[in-house]
């Protein structure tokens, strides 16, 4: 009574005169948290089994004002109920205390009937769900192989690279370079010319000094890795732009790690850092490059991250062991545990779940999974 919190309303002081002082204080401790956290929670006056059987109080309890509920919680004296005449829980909760046997029986009956209803409903719902699944199972199984096929068909109908040997620029290039121009295609309105890797600098210089469309600006230089091409897995790609003629062309040259490719820094000085980046991330060496060093990664890094075989997850290597701080004992233990379970390090459960959607490069939609 004396240690009553200030936030309790005046009405609750009525219950202070009861002999069960310890009980009151304990319920008050609950009362301090209950009304704030959850208005729907039953008052301590309820027997716990009764709480579920009375839907009306729990419904109306949502709109019940806080002081009343506090009064219902703390006020064990009968005057508490008279205070909260409008409140349903107080009127229903107090009889439960004072006259338990009759209400308990009726409550039990009600409960039994409710449970029966609920189980019947659940069974019905379950049956409907299984029926639905069974009925939907056959068509979905029929359409499941069909749905992935549909986009594939669309793709075959979709745009494809077309031969562009008739293009004026390609003709001019063929005149000057002969066999070095391997193929020329247009795809979605963009012209690509594949040239032989040993003559790429010559081709680039011709394009830069072209009379009609001088490709004086090297927009982009990058590389694409095709691991399935055993002899020349790397395509070095030059995206060129002619500022004067407003034309774009793409030059590609296939090479492998051993051969490398000639640097085009003599044609466009801007190729310098872009070639360094390709060297850094793909391991393609550029001959006659003025300053071939790693660009983004540390100089002593091992491996080339943008190659397809380079793993996505964290990998210990010489660099990490020499430069990263050592693991603590706990971290080391966690690491070993994760390894023991075959889990990828540094990936969250969410990420693993998402990665589960793609197996072998194909999406596995939730329907397809067992």
């Amino acid at each position, binding site marked *: 009574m004396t240690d009553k919190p200030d936030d309790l309303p005046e009405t609750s002081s009525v219950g202070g005169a009861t002999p069960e002082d310890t009980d009151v204080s304990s319920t008050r401790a609950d009362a301090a948290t209950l009304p704030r956290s959850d208005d729907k929670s039953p008052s301590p006056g309820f027997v716990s089994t009764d709480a579920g059987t009375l839907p009306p109080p729990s419904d109306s309890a949502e709109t019940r004002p806080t002081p009343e509920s506090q009064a219902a919680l703390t006020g064990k004296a009968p005057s508490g109920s008279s205070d909260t005449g409008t409140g349903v829980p107080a009127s229903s909760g107090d009889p439960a205390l004072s006259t338990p046997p009759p209400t308990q029986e009726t409550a039990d009956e009600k409960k039994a009937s409710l449970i029966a209803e609920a189980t019947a409903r659940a069974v019905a719902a379950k049956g409907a769900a299984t029926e639905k699944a069974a009925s939907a199972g056959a068509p979905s199984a029929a359409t499941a192989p069909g749905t992935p096929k549909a986009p594939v068909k669309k793709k075959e109908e*979709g*745009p494809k*690279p077309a031969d562009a040997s008739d293009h004026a620029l390609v003709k001019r290039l063929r005149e000057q370079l002969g066999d070095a121009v391997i193929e020329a295609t247009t795809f979605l309105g963009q012209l690509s010319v594949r040239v032989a890797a040993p003559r790429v600098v010559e081709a680039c210089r011709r394009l830069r000094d072209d009379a009609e469309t001088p490709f*004086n600006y090297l927009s982009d230089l*990058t590389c694409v890795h095709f691991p399935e091409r055993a002899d020349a897995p790397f395509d070095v790609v030059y995206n060129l732009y002619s500022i004067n003629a407003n034309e774009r062309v*793409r030059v590609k040259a296939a090479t492998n790690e051993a051969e490398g490719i000639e640097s085009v820094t003599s044609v466009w*000085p801007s190729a310098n*850092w872009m070639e360094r980046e390709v060297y850094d991330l793909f391991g393609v060496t550029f001959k006659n490059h003025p300053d071939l060093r790693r660009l983004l990664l540390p100089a002593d890094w091992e491996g080339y991250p943008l190659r397809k075989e380079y793993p996505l997850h964290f990998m210990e290597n010489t660099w990490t062991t020499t430069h990263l701080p050592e693991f603590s004992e706990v971290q080391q233990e966690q690491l070993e545990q994760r390894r023991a379970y075959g889990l990828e390090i540094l990936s969250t459960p969410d990420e693993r779940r998402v990665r589960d959607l*793609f197996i072998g490069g194909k999406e596995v939609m939730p329907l397809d999974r067992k």
Partner: protein
Amino acid sequence: MHQIEVATTRETLLDSPEMVLNMGPQHPSTHGVLRIILRLDGETVIDLDCDIGFLHRGMEKIAENRLYPMIAPYWDRLDYIAAVSNGLLWVETVEQMLGLDVPPRAHYIRTVLTELNRISSHLLWLATHGLDIGSFTVLLWALREREEILKIFERQFGARLTCHAWRIGGMPNDTYEGFAEDVTRFVNNFPMRLDEYETLLSENRIWLGRTVGIGVISGEDAIAIGLSGPALRGSGVAWDIRKSRPYAAYADIDFDVPVGENGDTYDRYLVRLEEMRQSRRIVQQALEKMPGGPVNAKVPKIIKPPVGDYYHSIEGPKGEIGCYLVSDGSSRPARMRVRPPCLINLQALRQMCVGHLVADVVAIIGTLDIVLGEIDR
């Protein structure tokens, strides 16, 4: 060849008039974690070498393992000052590969917000560039106007910097209620603010002393070294992708491409200020012409571009930001390359700095307008 060798023995250090000075990576005027190794004679720069990659996150590698729509948020984190522009490039690349017909209203909304983003990016450039050179007031004033734009972004996208502004095929939702009023209010107030910056800087003796004749690069050199955007236009090359290869709704909009004459830091400052005025014009026109209708195209549920490769680029605030996309027909790109304008502009730093004082290096970094998040990717 350009790798700076650090003299280690005491004799060489004392005998030589040259000195090697390390600047960064934790240096306020490098605008991020950029380390520059300077070889100096007295206070004059003889040679310099940039050390980058401190923010390398392997974004291109991550993109190869994500669905197409999942890649969009990573673009916001490249050039986090211009997330709306970057996002536009990504969705346009995929849309053009898929051959989607984006409704005109989406194009116009994209134009408005991308230009607002350009203004906000240039304002941050002005703020930090001014701060680097010694004008503190312009920082506060420019950030004040930038705040207005960020508020519009927050109301429209729910975020201020990393907006995730667009979706493939259109927009996540139409403009919010009161969007036109907010933008109009900003557009009406903005010229006055720009005039204020000009009174602070354009004829300021200190500003002129720090910028005129600093970091001069000719038009031919700028093209050869790969400069793009305002840095290239400052050297007198009138190349703007919004004009030469219009995307979004730029084809219907009338605006000028400002160019400089001398290719120095002051000209690039004037070009960017004028670009902000032009951006304001674009926003105004796009708002007036904005059609009604839907903002989303019909997009397939699983996005699988046709097998092939495609290069698309737009005029970002920093320069030509490009995306080279190689599709193998699956729902993830086989290769996604970002053409980072800041990285390629930063290449010119050595050429522009040699012969200048150490203090001018700061001014030239500022005028190149780099963001390290995009350089390192």
